[in-house]
């Protein structure tokens, strides 16, 4: 369950991790948080997904909407391609392990995102390149404490390990009962000031798994700005191999 914190960092991984949670309320109480992590990892091993999503970004200066098609394999590979608007059709992002590349069809070039730009916005949204890279490894980078349990939810505090290279000082993760889906995730900076919130909503059951179909990212220092990711359809356990996640596939249109 605590490893579900990683779902908040990337909708690509969210689909996978959530589908791996089989626990009931009773079994959660019986399990230590760390054992739950290992359990989730076993469930999650080998999972793949294929999804169509819409991302709406609203900033102080502009609003825009993107339609995207995304594939993911396990925790470290995903590929996302923009389908609309026409101006950006074909723009794609590939992530393998900790490397991120962007393909730009207009100039037919692949640009690797340098380390110094990992903090930059991904596709102009409020999700950063760093989110894409770090999302899958929250269970490795953080320690977990159950802050509070009520009939409605679990509240889990995630603190970074001493040697983890992460940007957040703390993450507070809410899991709603009884479906065990994420609710609100709050991010704190190193000064323990809340700077970002991710809200999950629109819970549906699809492909035998229950998961939220909408994720809203809100920077707390810029009220009025937000990024909304809405799943339109998603399929699991599709036949994908590691070779699919290559620069050659990145360039296909």
């Amino acid at each position, binding site marked *: 369950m605590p490893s579900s914190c990683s779902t908040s960092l990337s909708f690509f991984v969210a689909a996978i991790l959530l589908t791996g949670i089989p626990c009931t309320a009773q079994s959660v109480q019986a399990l230590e948080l760390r054992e739950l992590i290992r359990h989730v990892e076993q469930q999650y091993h080998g999972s793949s997904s294929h999804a169509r999503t819409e991302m709406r970004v609203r900033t102080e200066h502009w609003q*825009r909407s993107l339609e995207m098609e995304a594939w993911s394999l396990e925790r470290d590979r995903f590929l996302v391609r923009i389908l609309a608007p026409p101006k950006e059709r074909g*723009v794609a992002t590939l992530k393998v392990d900790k490397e991120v590349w962007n393909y730009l069809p*207009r100039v037919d*070039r692949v*640009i690797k995102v*340098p380390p110094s730009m990992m903090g930059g916005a991904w596709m102009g949204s409020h999700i950063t390149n760093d989110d894409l890279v770090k999302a899958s490894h929250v269970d490795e980078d953080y320690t977990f404490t159950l802050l509070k349990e009520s009939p409605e939810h679990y509240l889990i505090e995630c603190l970074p390990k001493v040697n983890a290279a992460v940007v957040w000082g703390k993450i507070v993760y809410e899991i709603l009962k009884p479906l065990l889906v994420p609710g609100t995730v709050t991010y704190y900076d190193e000064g323990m000031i809340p700077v970002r919130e991710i809200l999950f909503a629109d819970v549906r059951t699809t492909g035998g798994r229950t998961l939220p179909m909408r994720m809203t990212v809100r920077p707390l220092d810029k009220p009025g700005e937000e990024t909304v990711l809405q799943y339109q359809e998603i399929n699991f356990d599709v036949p994908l191999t590691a070779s699919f996640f290559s620069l050659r596939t990145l360039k296909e249109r």
Partner: protein
Amino acid sequence: MLWRLALRNIWRNKRRTALTVSAMVVSSSLLILSLGIFSGMLSDMLASATEQYYGHLVVSVTGYQDDRDFFDNFSPDPALLERIASTSGVRGISPRLRAFGLVSHGQRSDPAEILGVEPASERQVTRLQEKIVAGSYLPDDPEKGALLGRGLAERLGVNPGDELVFVTQAADGSIGNDLFTLRGIFATGDSRHDNGLVLVGLSALQRLTVLPDRVHELAASLEDPMTAGATAAQLNGQLPEGLEATDWGQLLPEMQEAIAASDVSRLIIVTILYFATGLGILNTFFMSVMERTREFGILMALGMRPWRVRAMVLLETLAMGGVSLALGISLGLALSLYMATVGIDLSESITPITYAGGTIAPRLRVVMEPANFIVPSLLLLVVCLLAGFLPANRAAGLDPVAAIRED
């Protein structure tokens, strides 16, 4: 009468006179030279700060220069350009658009500041065209040409003619990207710009960022950089609402402080050097007066008034000071002219030093400023008179009987 006595006294001990005059000549000429070098260094720093990037004055949306907000842009209408251009002292104006993004070649990418300019206008404001180390400056119609700083070019492994991809966030939220061709590489000695600045055509960057006909600033160069503050104040009274003129003193406060600090250190150098010179003169004249105690006694016994004795000694001082002044200025001028035209090239032993936003070139040179000659000259005369005053008073205060009896 007093003049003849004074001059005769000066020549009485030629060696002492020669030594004293030499001391004054050397100190004043070296002072003139060092002040000139100081001015040269400051001039280099100011030029590199303002003439390699900033300009002397910029007009932009109020507050833009504080945080470089990408969305603080404006459309420069011809009337505005004309008003700024017709302001007295303005030499050139360059419209600029600024974006931050990725510059990529092959497998390498680096973040950079991309500055869109009109090359013909930019050449009037900056001197990057004189800092080209490979290829050439942007042509007047740059199309998709780009200039890169040397450090950035080395990291990307590119040479003139190579292809570059620029990626940035456009004003409409989309990913702006385009192919450019490297036209040239510049090296200013300022590592911040050499490692992260790219120059492209203004219209190309406007298309890339989806900001048609918009700019972030109008950079201006002035005939005299020191008038930037006054010119900015004048413009601020004329600019439309929402725009402000900012001079280099505000853009580069540390440069302003460096100049003030340099003025103070110059004053300290002048004070120390002339204090030492004054002591030398004082010593000379005290010895001279002591040697002639009996003579002064006889003169006073004959009826010479104390004020005339004092005047005679001061005239001696003034005469020596005058001669030293003429020789000192001549020598200082000669040394300064040599340094202004030839200079001393230290580039083999040191690299450019960036300080306070400006770069000190590894070449000592002199800037000829009237103040650098006038101040040492006047101060030399003042020092001579002050140094001569004590022995003059001593001479004037002698008691004739005691003075004559002494031997």
